[in-house]
């Protein structure tokens, strides 16, 4: 049994890609977000949970779409975004990442 255990331990040491006891570091990527009115609210609220990559890789979307996304963050993900900031963020997203359509 002792021998078996030893083999098992050796095996796990051989297979491991990250050395036991070391942690991994996920890099930060500076996603090129557009500047403009309302950006401060976006930075303060959105970045807590996700990168700007999430915003710029959704594709151009309608105002309703962006409103739905921000409301989802508040309703389902419990992001503490106040009413004023909610509207500011929706306006910002639609202006810079909108498709020009309301619906």
């Amino acid at each position: 049994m002792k021998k078996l255990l030893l083999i098992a331990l050796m095996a796990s040491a051989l297979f491991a890609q990250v050395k036991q006891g070391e942690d991994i570091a996920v890099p930060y990527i500076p996603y090129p977000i557009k500047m403009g009115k309302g950006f401060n609210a976006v930075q303060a609220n959105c970045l807590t949970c996700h990168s700007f990559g999430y915003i710029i890789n959704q594709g151009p979307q309608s105002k309703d779409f962006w409103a739905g996304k921000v409301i989802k963050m508040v309703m389902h993900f419990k992001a503490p975004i106040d009413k004023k900031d909610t509207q500011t963020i929706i306006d910002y997203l639609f202006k810079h990442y909108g498709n020009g359509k309301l619906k």
Partner: protein
Amino acid sequence: MKRRDFFKTSLAAAGALSVGSTLQAAHQPLTGQLISKLNFPEKRPMITYSDRPPLLESPRHVFARSITNNDEFFVRWHMPEIPTYIDIEKFRIKVSGLVETEFEISLHDLKTQYEQVEVTAALQCGGNSRSAFSPTTGGIQWGSGAMGCAKWKGVRLRDLLHRAGLKKGAKWIGFNGLETASYYKTPNFIRELQLEELDDHVIVAYEMNGEDLPYLNGYPLRLVIPGTYSDSWVKMLSEIRVTREYEKLFFMDIAYRVPDNDCECETPEKKYPRTKPITKMNVKSVIGYPETGALVQNGSHIVVRGVAFDDGTGITSVKVSVDGGKTWNDATLDDGSAGRYAFRGFRHSFKPQTLGKLTIMAKAINRAGKEQPLDKDVKWNHGGYKYNGIDEITVEVI
């Protein structure tokens, strides 16, 4: 300029996406996206949509092979906080709820006290190829690389449940992983499955292609549910909880759902009121070589390579066209020894005879007679899930 030509030069990682057409249909998904210069832990540089949570796509050339390397395997998390350190001596997986004996087990005991099993299975995000949909749907605009296929090793979920002993009335199982949200109140990414959906192929896996799982693919343990979209393959699995009732969960009730009608389709103006989980994968194939934009020599032998898969029903043939869909040839399939859940590799060789643009297409057909539709015939759904249009790439013969 065709949309896909535009996308060829677009920089998804830099956020340059075009305005989609207003036609309600699909077209070819994004291809040739920029590969980041930055590598993530245990990964080669990949197409990088987000760093928090990490969202990494495999570049197309990876699918010229039917096993996806661990360091090129796609990554998709839902929460910003994922553990970057796990003390394997202290790590335990807990089985609890409506069982005779609740227990916690270490990775070492899992590897030594249970029968070890292996399954080669394709793993695909429900939103893979989402960028094909028009109008653009919500969600990350993935190309075709939110998928991969690996040989998974672990123990049967059944065996763990057997040790715990199910109590009468046990019907649902919830799976919880270690990723956490920034806010305490944010719902965890828990998945629920009905006990009757589970078969012996469902495993709790600690090994991928002969190595520990990479952190970003769920080290030290993840659920493997062959044939099913990856949203149910919970990563960094820490808790298995048996219940009588279905518990209301955001990621089960709101996300990863398609219209509950025959075509699983709807229009942006008239969304279908009832939805269902995406669950089983439909038949699909992706060309790994050559890639759109490649230059190929006139008269030289070209070997088109790619992979095909479905929900485990089994791929029976792949047709390849090298004239933009006018004529179709049977591709040569691999021997299928990796099993019905694995990527089935296919290849087709030909000699281009005419200078100029040449479009290569691939279409998979499975045992049930299901085949991939043309991209334009793929029906729209609001989440952009389950795209499986015939894959198409265009090279230039010189």
